[in-house]
Each structure stands twice: as C-alpha cells, then as structure tokens.
C-alpha cells in the first residue's frame, strides 16, 4: 500500500506561509500531477512529501504510517529533480547503483537491477559514460533510472522535463506515462506546464498561492473548472473571458455583450442565474467554441454569431489561432485551417454555447459547477 494522505499540511517560513492547510488523498498507483504557476507551493509540497522540507503543521501519511518525523531515506520514495542532480564524477552505472550500494545490496543484485533498468530506459549504451557526455534527455532518463533501481513505492518528480527542448519533452512525456503503467507505482509529479499535466495525469491538483483550487481528472478540470483561475490555467490557448450582463427574456437567459446576445440554455441549472439577472458576470468560452461557419452538430438555439476584428492570424498547421478584438476585449479563436481570415479584417464567427462557463465577478467562482 502506498497511498498518500496530506492532512491540513502547512509550510511556513517565519511569518510567510507558502502552503496553506492542504488536504489531499493520493491513491495507490495513481499518477497525480501538481500544477500551478511559479511560487504556488507545488514544489514545497512535493519536498515535504519527500522529507526534504520540514512540515510546519499537519500530518503526512504514506500508507497507514504517519511519516512527519521519518527521515527521507526511510520513506521508500525516490525523487527525480529538475536539474537531475547526477553525480558528475560517476559513470551512469555508478550513479544508478549508488543508492543500492548505500543500502548494502548484494553486488549481483545491484548489477542485475541496473542493467534491467537501463534496458527499460534504453540507456544500456550509456552505462560507462559520465553525465558530462550526456544530452539533457539522456540525463533525464538516467535520473529516472536512478530512482527506478530502488524500486520505491512512490516516485516524486519535480519538473523533470523543464530543461528539455519541446520535441524531446513530447517524447519523454509519453515515455514517463508508459513507465508509470509498467512500474505500477504511485507517481507524484510537479510541473507548471498544463499540457504535461493534461496529457499524463490520472488526476490533476491545481494550486495557486499555496492553496489547492481544484483536484480532478484532466477532462473534468477542462470541462468543469470551479473558478476563473482553473478555467484560465487549464487549456491552451486559454479560455476567453468576457464580461456579460445577464438578462432574462421570458424563460430564457441571455448574456449581453454590447450588441451580441449569447443565449444561455442551461436547463436545470438556469435557476442559478436568477440572482445575477441585471448583473455583470464573466462568460468563459473555450477557443474551440468559435467556428467560421455554423456548426452542424450543435443546436442552433445554442449558438450565436459574433463579429470581431482579426488582430493576428496564427497558422498552426492543423488549425488557425485567430487573435481577435471585440469591443476592447481580447479573444482567441481556434478555427479550421480552411478559414481565410486575414489580419485587420472583420470576421463573423459562430459561437457554440452548448457548454458555457459562467463565473461570479466578485468571488471568481463558477456559477454553474
């Protein structure tokens, strides 16, 4: 059993609290990712789990054991650092074997484990090389290998891909995901890259300013963010936020944005808008909600046309990102590559409002979820 429980975990440095009352349950063999902007406390949380930072208050359980006062080496965890932290004077083999040697594992066992791990990570040809000769990706795999040979219950990874170029990062993302499946261990991974979080995690923990904002599966976070921060942080390009005024026309609600009426067909949840009638709320629209033609698979009652000025069209190959300006609001639309809109041109787009996101302007919390 290697489930991990964080109960009211706090970390303070003098008067400054960087992690506030964190409660989190991590299941055995789960791949969980802590994501958030720099300084949100995700690495500090990870280091507290690793035992590299003292816990100011709260309880940390690994399995059924309270490990607050158990030293890092006895927690049966392995950590992969952002800068890999390989010993520069040791060969790859010795780097990987070092932890086992310290534990006085038999020589044959060390050799077998190192070679087996090297085979899994495809670094057999690097075993007699020193880190100085290795590229970033190779170092990264060695760092992973060093963690793997110990066969720990929990892997902690602190932004392990942030030093790699985009192409390598992509391939390493899938390699780590496969590794998780292969090893069947608990992975706790810290990143500020939401693409990494979305593609790799079983569940994502979104953090900001030392608080957990939302914990859920990637798709739920994308579809039902509970506040404006999560909505803006998850998804690339990020969600468009428009200030609209709620109006009620008969039984129907609309979000009025200057001369555009966004129909809000919310079904059972419509009643939640009653307190906001006549008030301003934030309407969140994903970039893919915009279409250059009327979408066929969407109820026409849940769409509206919308005019905006194309500030910049960014062809991405499979799609085009249109940077738009409408009544002073900046928006991004993700449209098909067939769209012929050019910079400086007024375009009319169709907005799909099947799944609108509405946020309270004061609390920034979702009105619908």
């Amino acid at each position, binding site marked *: 059993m290697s489930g991990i429980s964080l109960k009211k975990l706090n970390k303070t440095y003098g008067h400054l609290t960087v992690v506030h009352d964190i409660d989190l349950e991590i299941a055995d063999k789960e791949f969980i990712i802590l994501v958030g902007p720099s300084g949100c406390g995700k690495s500090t949380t990870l280091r507290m789990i690793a035992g590299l930072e003292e816990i100011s208050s709260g309880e940390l359980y690994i399995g059924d054991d309270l490990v607050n006062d158990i030293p890092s080496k006895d927690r049966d965890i392995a950590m992969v650092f952002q*800068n890999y932290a390989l010993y*520069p*004077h040791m*060969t790859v*083999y*010795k780097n990987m074997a070092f932890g086992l040697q310290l534990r006085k594992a038999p020589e044959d066992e060390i050799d077998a484990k190192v070679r087996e791990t090297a085979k899994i990570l*495809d670094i057999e*040809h*690097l*075993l*007699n*090389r*020193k*880190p*100085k*000769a*290795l*590229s*970033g*990706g*190779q*170092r990264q795999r060695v760092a992973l290998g060093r963690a793997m040979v110990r066969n720990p219950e929990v892997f902690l990874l602190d932004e392990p891909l942030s030093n790699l170029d985009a192409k390598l990062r992509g391939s390493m993302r899938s390699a780590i995901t496969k590794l998780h499946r292969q090893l069947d261990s608990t992975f706790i991974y810290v990143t500020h890259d939401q693409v990494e979080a979305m593609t790799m995690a079983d569940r994502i923990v979104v953090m900001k300013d030392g608080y957990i904002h939302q914990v859920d599966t990637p798709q739920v976070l994308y579809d039902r963010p509970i506040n404006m921060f999560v909505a803006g942080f998850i998804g690339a390009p990020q969600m468009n936020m428009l200030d609209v005024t709620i109006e009620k026309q008969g039984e129907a609600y609309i979000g009025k944005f200057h001369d555009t009426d966004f129909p809000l067909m919310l079904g059972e949840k419509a009643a939640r808008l009653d307190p906001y009638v006549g008030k301003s709320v934030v309407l969140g629209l994903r970039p893919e909600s915009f279409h250059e033609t009327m979408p066929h698979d969407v109820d026409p009652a849940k769409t509206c046309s919308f005019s905006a000025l194309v500030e910049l069209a960014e062809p991405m190959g499979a799609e085009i990102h249109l940077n738009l300006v409408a009544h002073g609001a900046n928006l991004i639309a993700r449209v098909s590559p067939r769209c012929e809109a050019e910079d400086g041109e007024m375009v009319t787009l169709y907005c799909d409002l099947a799944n609108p996101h509405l946020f309270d302007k004061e609390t920034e919390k979702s009105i619908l979820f």
Partner: protein
Amino acid sequence: MQWLTNWMMKEGPGVRKDEPKKTGLALFVSIILREPWELFKLNLLMLLLCIPVITIPANLVAAGRICGLMIEDEVVFFWRDYWRAFGQRAVASTLWGLFFAVLLGICGYSAFIYGQLGLHDMVYVAPAVIAICLTLLVLMVAVCLFTILSKQVCLPALVLLKSACLAALAKPIPILAGIAFAALLWLAHVIFYPASIFLPVVLNFSLGTLAMVFGAYKATDFALQMLELVGSRQGAEESASI
C-alpha cells in the same frame, strides 16, 4: 561557485546509440580522455605495489584487468576489480612472473654478451640479433600471457603458454607497438629527468600497462578463439568416433 555548478551540469553532446565503436588508435586515445582519473589512481596503486617487487606480476595482472575493462568499455569499480583480480591471480602470475624474469634475464644477458662480442668480431652479430629477437619474442609472449591471465580465463599452464605464443606470433605489430609505447614513456622519464620526475607517479605505470594490454588484447582474443575452435573440433571428432 555558480560557474563550477554550470560547468559540472553543462549539457553534453549526447551519445548516439548507433555510434560506431572506436577502434585502434582512436579507441586508445578515447580511453585516455575518458578515464584520466582512473588511470591516475591505477598508476599510484601500481607504483606502491611495485615496491615489494614480488607483487609486481600480480600487480600487472590486476592492472591489466582494469585496463581490459576500460578497453571493453565496461564499468570499472576500481578498488573492487583491482583487488579481486590481484587475489585471484596472485599465485599464478607470480610463478609466471618468475619464469619470464629468468627467461628474459637469460635472453637479455645473451643478447648483451653477443652484442659485446659482435663489436669485436662480426661472427657474433648474427647470434646477437637472434638473441635480441628472442628477447623481444619472450617479452611479447609475456605480455600476451599476462593479458590472458587478466581476462580471468582459466587455462592449464601449457595451454596458456601455447595461446600466448600463438597470440604473439599472430599479431606481433600491435603488441610490439604497445611495448614500444611503454618503453618510450620510461625513456622520456630518463631523458627529461629531472623535469620528468613526476612522470612515473602520474602515468608511466598505468599508461604503459594500458598500451601493452591494448596492443595484446585483440591478439589474445584471436588466440583464445582459435583455442576454442580447436577444442570444439577435437570434441566433435571424438564424439563422431564414439
């Protein structure tokens, strides 16, 4: 100290999986560039273990083992591998060392005597040349035999000697080159003394051993393969006759 961290953590060019294996001189140079610290440590240990004299043969075999691992591009656990080879081959290498010391002494002395006589009478030039060639051959056989011993191959004494002779005769040029390189290192020490006073402390022993083992490595592999081939052929003939 940031520069030190940056220097140590600086990303390298990477190692290609399909990189062709270096051979010959390129491999020799790459080993020196790759393992300077290990070679230095080996040199110090060899230097210390040459002082009791009787430990020289086992010392050479153990150092040969380390050099062999470097040539094979295998992981070297310096202390462990050295002493393991030293312990395993201490008796055999000492006996062989005494044998070759006597043989080289006889050959060398005869070369010296015939050389001296040759200065006065041309009749003795031919035996002097033969003695020099024999000395070199014995030296080559000794290098090959010690290299085979360092490979941790267990062979009966006669078979071992036979394979060393076969290796020395099969590929004499690289073996001679290795011996010449080692000799040059010592010559440089003598010629440039006292400027070269630290040369034996830093690299003469280990680099010399590496050069000799490197020169004899393929030849001994070839000899051992031939031996296996003959052995398996004999085995097949015997089983066919049965």
